Every structure is written in C-alpha cells, then in structure tokens.
C-alpha cells in the first residue's frame, strides 16, 4: 500500500507541486505544535484538537480539489483550513480569541473556517458536518454546477446516525460528495478495534451502495491519487465515494488527554512512518535538494512565529458585539 521512496513520482505530480505539499504539511505541523506549546504554557484557554501526524490526508485530498469545490471539516480541523490556503494569522488570532480571528473570537479552535476558500465549517459535533456536506452537494446538483464536496470525518463519526442518514441521501440522489474518513485509530479513547465489528471501516460503505477504497493516509501520493479518482467520479455525476485514510494522531484527542488507552511503543511505531519524513525522503530520492527542504522548514517556522506575534498583538473582541451577532441581517458570504 505504501509507496517506497525508490518509486518514481506519480505522473501527474511534479516536483514543484510536491514541494508545495511539503510546505503545507510542515505549516500544519508547526502551527499545531505551536498551539500545543501555547496550551502547555497556559497562554490559551478552552480546548483544541491537533492534526499532528495526519497532515498527508488533508493536504493530499485538498490538492485534488478544484477552485469552487468545498469541504466540511471537523473538530480536528486546523489542517483542512491550512491545506485550503487559509490565513494562519487569522487562525492563530482565533485560537487566541482575538478580534482579528477568523470568527472574531466567537468560535475558537473548533470553528475556524475560511468560507471564501470553500470551507463550509469546522464542526464541534462528531459527524455534524456530514448531512451539511450532502446538502451542499444537493445545492450544487440543483444549480446544475459541477462542484464537488469533500466531507471530512474521523473514524468515530461512522458510528453516528448522522453518517448513516447522510451516506444514504448522497447515494440515492447520486450527489457529488466524497466522504473522507480519517481513521486515526481512536475516537477519543475508543479504539476502532473495540468500536467497530469491521475489519476495515471502508467496508461500511457497501451497505449504502457507495464505492469505497482504503489508502495509506500517511502517504500523500496514495491519498492524492485516491481522492483525485473519487472527486472526478463525483464531478462526472456518478455519485458519492468513501475513502478510508489510515493514519494516526500523535497527540492526545484534546488537551486533557493523558494517553492512558495506548502505549508509548504504539505511538513510536507510528512515528516511524511519519508522513512528512516520508514525503521528504521521497523528494530527495527524486532529485530535491536537501538545503531547499531545510529552507522551506525555516520559512514555515518564521511564518507561524509571525502568526503568533500577529495574534498576540491583536485586540480582544468587544463584548458589546455579542447580542447583535446572533442573527444575520442579510445573506452571509456564501461560497
């Protein structure tokens, strides 16, 4: 399943494109590592869900989208928004609860989303975005447009009723939606081995008449290829697909997680298969220059440091805005 570094690049992917992916993945990692540090220092309140270890999924899937396509994201949504090209200054400011944040401080970690880039919302409710994704796809179908919707979820979402209803609606109406299941092995502490009686989560799609595939979620090329096929299937009017991307989260479910349900050894084993290391090895084997990779890494670190500085120097929101913010006075900025 995993491509070896000795294999050539997939045809449609250029070295330049792959370097762009590396920059995105490094940005996601550095961004979430910074958030982790801020929590450890007590500089942010609330909670957060880090995408560290899963970067290849968001990056590979979103690389296969076209302008105008949309996604629904999850509680673990920073990676999706960064992969879409989101502004990390506004993301960091939102996490720090500032007026300059994406949601002006109304949303926080679980509601960061850039609609102008096609993000219909991160979502604090497991599977909550899935019926919404299906509705967006219905909207595109009714408008006779060719946009596609990618509905991200975790493994846990597949045991929610919302997934069942959304999958069935997508299937019977042949909607242009791709369900991308980020199987990071745990719904909080619940192991997929305990919470599913299935060998592979992708098997569940058969019950809806939806084609499904399982990919190595730590290999961006596999993710990108599978997503590309599913997205084009959806765009051509052939209906929904499901991709199970097998991956792993290195950090706890949220900031309060003491990792009591898994072993250090297990985490270490997965770190051996790190998606960023994998892509770097691959790029070097295919002619990339090691110093240019290090340069990207430095630039990313600087950009995230700048984002933090931007956020910390941004004003707090004014509570007098609250009551007036509940109802829309006119239609919002739709994608």
């Amino acid at each position, binding site marked *: 399943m995993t491509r070896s570094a000795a294999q050539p690049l997939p045809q449609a992917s250029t070295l330049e494109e792959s370097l762009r992916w590396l920059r995105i993945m490094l940005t996601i990692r550095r961004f979430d590592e910074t958030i982790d540090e801020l929590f450890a220092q007590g500089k942010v309140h609330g909670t957060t869900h880090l995408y560290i270890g899963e970067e290849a999924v968001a990056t590979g899937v979103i690389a296969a989208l076209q302008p105008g396509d*949309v996604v*629904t994201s999850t509680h673990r949504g920073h990676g999706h928004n960064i992969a879409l090209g989101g502004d990390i200054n506004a993301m960091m400011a939102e996490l720090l609860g500032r007026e300059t*944040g*994406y*949601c*002006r*401080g*109304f*949303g926080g970690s679980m*509601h960061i*989303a850039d*609609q102008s880039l096609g993000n*219909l*919302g991160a*979502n*604090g*409710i497991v599977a*909550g975005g*899935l*019926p*919404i*994704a*299906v*509705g*967006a*796809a*219905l*909207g*595109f179908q*009714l*408008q006779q447009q060719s*946009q596609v*919707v990618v509905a991200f979820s975790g493994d846990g979402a597949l045991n929610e*009723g*919302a997934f069942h*209803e*959304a999958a*069935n*609606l997508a299937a*019977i109406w042949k909607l242009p939606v791709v369900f991308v299941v980020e199987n990071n092995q745990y719904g909080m502490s619940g192991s997929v081995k305990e919470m599913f009686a299935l060998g592979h989560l992708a098997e569940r799609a058969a019950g809806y008449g939806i084609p499904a595939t399982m990919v190595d979620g730590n290999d961006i090329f596999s993710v990108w290829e599978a997503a590309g096929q599913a997205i084009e299937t959806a765009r051509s009017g052939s209906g929904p697909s499901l991709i199970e991307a097998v991956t792993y989260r290195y950090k706890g479910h949220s900031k309060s997680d003491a990792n009591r349900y898994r072993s250090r050894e297990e985490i270490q084993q997965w770190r051996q298969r790190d998606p960023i290391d994998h892509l770097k090895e691959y790029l070097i084997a295919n002619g990339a220059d090691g110093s240019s990779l290090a340069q990207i890494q430095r630039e990313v670190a600087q950009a995230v440091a700048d984002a933090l500085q931007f956020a910390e120097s941004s004003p707090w929101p004014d509570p007098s805005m609250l009551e007036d*913010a*509940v*109802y*829309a*006075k*006119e*239609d*919002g*900025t*739709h*994608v």
Partner: protein
Amino acid sequence: MSEMTYGAAIRSAIEWEMDRDPRVFIMGEDIGVYGGAFGVTMGMVDRFGKERVRDTPIAEEGIVGAGIGAALVGMRPIVEMQFSDFIMNAMDQVVNQAAKIHFMFGGRMSVPLVIRGPAGAGTGAAAQHSQSLEAWFHHVPGLKVIMPAFPDDARGLLLSAIRDPNPVVFFEHKLLYKLKGEVNETDEGLPFGRGIIRRYGAHATVVTYSLMVHRTLEAAEHLAKKGWDIEIIDLRSLVPMDVDLVVESVKRTGRLAICHEAVGRGGVGGEIAARVLESDAFDYLNSPLLRISGLNTPVPYSPPLEQAFMPSVDRIEQTLEAWLTQEVTSQ
C-alpha cells in the same frame, strides 16, 4: 382577497416563492405524489417537478442537515417535518448547527432555512405526534419561531420566513389546516415580531398564539355576556416577540393571563410573564398573573383524556372567570 384554508395559504406561500425564486425548493417525507401527511404540498410535484418538491427517506437529521448545506451554497430550502415531534430526531442539526453557524463563524455565513412542521394535539395521535414544542426552540439563540393562527398570517409569515437569512422554525397547528379565511395573495410578507390585538378589552389582557387564539376568542365572547371585557393578543411570532404590544396592553388592562397549548412547565408563558414583570407594566398589575396551558403530562390518547390535556374553551372561560372574580373579591 380570496377565501382559502390555512393549509392552502401555506401552500400558496411556498408556490409563490418557488415561482419567484429558483433557489427555493422543498423536501420532506411523502411530500410528492402523496401530497404530505396533511396535504399541504398536494399537487406541487406536478407543477414544480421531483427535484424541487423532493421526497426524502425517513431521515430527519439528514433532511435538516441537507437543508443547511444547501442553504450554505446559496439555496433557499424549506424542509417539512411530517409531524413537528419528529424534529427531535434532527435536534443536533437544528440546535448545534443551523442556530449557531452565523454566530460561531463570526457572521461569515448565514443559514436561510425554513423548518415547517405540524404541531399540536386534538387529533388523537397520542404522545409522540401531538406535542407543542415551541419552548425548546424559543430557548435557542439563532432560531426564529413562528406560530400563525389564521390563513392570512400563515401565508404572509411563511413568505417572510423563506426570505429570512436565518433558520426559522414554523409551526402549523393540525387543527387549523382546514380553517378558512380571507387571504391576500400578494408579494408582501408579514414582518416577524409583530403581534396583533384580536379583541380589544378593558378588564384583562390574554396573550396567546396558534390554536389557542381561537379558543380564547370564543371564551372571551362567553365572558362578554357576563360583563367581562377581555383583550386578546395573538403573538404570531415568538422569536422575535412583540413584548412592547403586551406591555402596553397590560398597562391599560392591569391584568395579564397567558394561554398556550404547550405544557405549562418551562413554557413560553413563563417568559412572557417575566418580560412583563421586568417592565414598567409591573406597576400597573392589579392582580397575580394567570397561566392557562396544557397539563404537565405527555399528550394522552383517549378522547376525554386528550380533551383534558388541552385548554378547552370551557376551561379557558372558567379559569379566566374564576381569576377575574377572585381578583375583584380580593381587592
């Protein structure tokens, strides 16, 4: 002006908007050839086609969520809950998603979605098909809640609901679907948040909405023969609520009663009472206030039990009379 039923007036509003605006469509269970469980969408599929009058599986969470998603990409969906009780199956999408999207994303998105559903008891449909659940939605910031009592209001308020950029929960009372009334089939929507005085009176204000407007009006006529002059306010819209109209009325009459079919405990009546007590109308109150509501039980099945659950004309009349008389004697 033409005479039509409450159900036909609702259909008229939907058809009007579907003719006017290609973004509007409706989906729900059995709304196509079947015409909807209460016949509201009868014949619409022939006129607008299966795409825009869309039969769905029995999947309320999916239907409401799909309405939200379609709204987010520029459509104007109307979703029908076959019985308003079934919205319980969709609560995450209504409460955690639709109601909060505008706010929690900092105003970057809005959800122009109408959720319609038949509410109320009186049809022998028992505990899971007869509830009046408006208080649940009234409690959730981000939702608007509309409960019309007359055909003309139903049409005008539904036009406004479809045009509103926010999620609107629109409760229709099952016992009103066949009620006839004059309806103005114009393009003009009725603004939300405006109650109306259905009957002017000097002795007490009764605040009510939906089916209970009709029952309190009838009770008031009976009481008029006994010398009591009751003012009746039909709120029409619970969120936003026309508190000013109520406060002004209470300042004139000095007495406040509230009548709704929903169970009293935690009901909208408590909110109405609190708003009046917080206002300068407090100084004008001559007596304790009165709530007349559904019993604090699930809706029962057997006819005498169901009738006992709902405020009847007799119960409303007797309760009001006892309250008015007691006040007079205690003064």
